[in-house]
């Protein structure tokens, strides 16, 4: 890594000014698990690294009506939290599916949402790709077995986060602290496609940080699940994952939120699948139709057509499991 100045922030006050407008100059360190990689590979060369872990108010889970999770809460603490396991199952399962125990003990929820993509062209210093202000996407014609089947172009990264699809399916919102104080942004609006911004995957400004993640209390009859498929089961990013949150009344689906991970540059809402489910009973036929709808508009590349079938099957699997839950 390149030499940098290390700064420990102890309060939010003054932090936006410290971070400034240029995200290449100053970077935020939370769990540091992704940051360390980026620094070591010299993919980023910040002048200053700002450690925010000493900011107390960013830690911890508050239970009230809904969930209120400090951005620095480590993934392991979320995964094992009894209330989250019971009421927000999809989030507990998603955070529990991240990497391995060591990384879940270090990695934070805010960091998991803001982590950079794993595309091997992005991560390889020698490929000056679109995300590095280069002129081409190497994956488009290159080895793209792990790349996007939805929402790609001109860059075909996939969003690597497990927690992001879960939080999107739960309708979470993010509290963000910046130069003008606090603001709240629905997670629905947080992520952005490459066609909107090639360089960054979300709408956080350089001088902002996520402070808290809020999840509304699920309506009665809500059940949820996160299924993640890894090529290497011991530890891997999702080849495809599905976060499904269903509210069922009687035998009818009243509300359906299905968000896919690992298949698009952002956590990808499978609207067509949701529509197939609304107002219907979870029969096998309905589930089959919803699963097919989830991937109906997939647009795979040369090497990732299998992800379409895989994703369809994962959606089906998730819905079948929710049916018998």
């Amino acid at each position, binding site marked *: 890594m390149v*030499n940098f100045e290390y700064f420990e922030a102890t309060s939010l006050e003054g932090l936006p000014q410290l971070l400034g407008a240029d995200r290449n100059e100053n970077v935020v360190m939370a769990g540091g698990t992704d940051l360390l990689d980026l620094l070591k590979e010299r993919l980023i060369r910040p002048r200053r690294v700002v450690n925010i872990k000493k900011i107390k108010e960013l830690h911890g889970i508050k239970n009230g009506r809904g969930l209120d999770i400090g951005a620095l809460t480590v993934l392991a603490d979320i995964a094992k939290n009894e209330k989250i396991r019971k009421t927000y199952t999809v989030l507990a399962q998603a955070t529990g599916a991240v990497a391995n125990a060591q990384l879940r003990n270090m990695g934070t929820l805010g960091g998991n949402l803001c982590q950079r993509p*794993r595309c091997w062209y992005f991560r390889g210093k020698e490929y000056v790709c679109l995300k590095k202000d280069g002129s081409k996407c190497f994956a488009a014609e290159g080895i793209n*077995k792990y790349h996007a089947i939805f929402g790609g172009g001109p860059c075909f990264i996939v969003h690597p986060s497990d927690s992001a699809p879960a939080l999107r399916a739960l309708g979470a919102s993010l509290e963000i602290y910046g130069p003008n104080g606090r603001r709240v942004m629905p997670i629905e609006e947080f992520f952005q496609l490459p066609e909107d911004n090639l360089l960054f995957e979300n709408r956080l400004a350089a001088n902002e940080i996520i402070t808290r993640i809020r999840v509304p209390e699920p309506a009665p009859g809500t059940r949820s699940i996160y299924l993640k498929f890894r*090529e290497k089961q011991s530890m891997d990013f999702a080849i495809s994952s599905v976060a499904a949150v269903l509210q069922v009344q009687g035998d009818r689906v009243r509300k359906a939120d299905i968000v896919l991970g690992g298949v698009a540059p952002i956590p990808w809402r499978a609207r067509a699948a949701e529509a197939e489910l609304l107002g219907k009973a979870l029969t096998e036929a309905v589930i089959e139709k919803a699963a097919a709808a989830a991937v109906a508009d997939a647009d795979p590349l040369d*090497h990732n057509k299998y992800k379409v*079938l*895989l994703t369809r099957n994962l959606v089906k699997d998730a819905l079948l499991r929710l049916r018998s839950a």
Partner: protein
Amino acid sequence: MAGWKSLKDMTVLSKPLPRLDGPDKVAGQAKYTHDMHPKGLLYAGLLVSPHPAARVVKIDASKVRRLPGVKAVLTDVHPTGTVRYAGEEIAAVAATSPEVLEDALELFEVEYETLPFVADIDSAMQENAPRVFANRPNIRDPRVRGEGDVDAGFARADAVVEGEYRTQVQTHSTLETHGSMVYWEGDELVIYDSTQAVHGVREGVAKFLDMPVNKVRVVCKHMGAGFGSKLQPGRYTAIAARLAKETGAPVKLMLTRKQDFLGGGNRPNSISHVKLAATKDGKLTAFYAKTYGTAGIGTNAGIRLPFIYTIPNWKHEHYDVFTNAGPARAFRAPGCPQASFVMEQLMDELAEKLNMDPLEFRLKNDSNATRQKEWRLGAKKFGWQRRHKKPGADTGRYKRGMGLAASIWWPGGRGTKATMTIYPDGTLDVKCGTQDIGTGTRTYMAMVAAEELDIPMKRIRPMLGDSNFPKSGASGGSTTTPSVGPAIKNTSERAKTKLMDLAAQFLGVPATDLAWDSGTVYMKTNPVKKLTWDELCQLLGTETLEVHGQWVEGLSSRGVAGCQFAEVTVDTWTGQIQVNKIVAVADCGLILNRLTTESQVNGAILQGISYALLEERHMDPETGTMVNANYGDYKILGAKETPAIEVIFYDEPERGVIGIGEPPTIPTNAAIANAVYNATGVRMYELPMTPDRVLTALEAHQFAGKED
């Protein structure tokens, strides 16, 4: 010379003993080359070409030299100036810290004239493809082997199967990268090297630097795996030596993880067009194979067909294909895992066509007497009879299947020398210029001496990994144990003889009147007249007893058979293969240490599963570079891919010592592939069997994600 004791008389050997250096390794006390930090150490690194083919026009190192902390720079490390793979070294730096080194490597200004390249075997084989070597075609002249009349063999067959099989390039991915730490003592060069051959590196580096061999010393006390990739001296060692000479300081040059992936060796891929035939009573009549493989810019990408089966008529044409990629190196059973993938699947296809059980079909065509017994033993322990007769018989999403495959290996022991030094206090050193590449060599050296002399292990200090010790060969080809084991036994026997002579002199009786038991020498006719081990050693006074011995015929042999059985579950919705269980039957003559031998087999199986399911070098077609040159994207199996493993040793102690490092990695991939077929009725023709390939194959078969 006496042979080995019988198994029942052994008190130390052939027992399951933990390795002596285990605690040091666990506690971080075992120092690997990577851990060497002598005072004043300089950190060296290589600048490598980012281009797969280029002429280096100019290297401007002026900014590098001006960076504070840079102590030496070499810009002439490439022999020709034309690089042929991304990752080839073109310059080197020594600096005061790893951080300065990294900064320094960025400051080189290199002008390249890039050249056309071929990144993979398919593009290299195309007509008018750019040539890797200007004066040679990419496809080399074939090596043709065979016997009998192939056409006649096919003509008289009742059933024929044919197909195209592909295996991938696998990199060695050793936990410790290649590298050396070197320093000069006057005109003598000391090299700490992560190597499988301390003597080989000594000779190689001496030659390369035009130095007398006796002025070079190579040390490797512990090393973090080689798998065949560390059998030869590295260019990096000579570069480190030059940097150390120029600076007068110790210099450590370890390849980065990425450089290790690019240039540290690999197992060649293979493309096999094959055809196999048999009569309806199940006797093989003919085999034909046309195969291609790339060893990058190197050669020897062969595949050992027709593998283990007895076929009266066969022909194999093999073509090496040059590509702009790092050269292959020997990799655990070179050419064999590829061959098992091809041949064992063909055998299953043919058995099915003949309506014959795969095991029964093999028994008819395997002429190895040991393996005949092993097939039956393994089948019984594994429960082969539980296997689905009809492939894909399980209904539903998850399908279970069973498969089997054979293993084989050839080399045995060879010339190795050893020295034993016995001290008056009853302790002793056993020295041998071999190396422990993780197999437990150090431990069985002490075990052999303890068994022969009947003294406690703790009295013995086994010493290895130093070219100042008596010569032993490279640790390759599973030759170490059958070489070193007999040498230590021979040395121990000679020590015993010398000590008996000493006792005879002291007791004033002829040595022939004396006997040795439990480390005590006594008079056969009057057993109360005796000398214990301690008393015996005290006779040395202030001297030490130095005894030399060597490998001798009769204590080792060559050639092993073996077989493995795999049970898998295939998730037809995701294409994921879960290996549930592997039963391995392995023979290796006399087992010196049952625990470390079992570890060898376990490790070989795990590497085989990793090869079968995950590992693959991906070369970007457009840039000719490896996209997954890191431990995240180059996937190696972990705990969840690890199945239950049952190792059954087929003991043949009368054969003496035989190596086991390589053979058990050969059949694993094929046993899994056959089990996948048995589970699904869909055959996998390409490694690794990753979910994308499995799911695509299942979809073509039209039941992916459907319950039938």
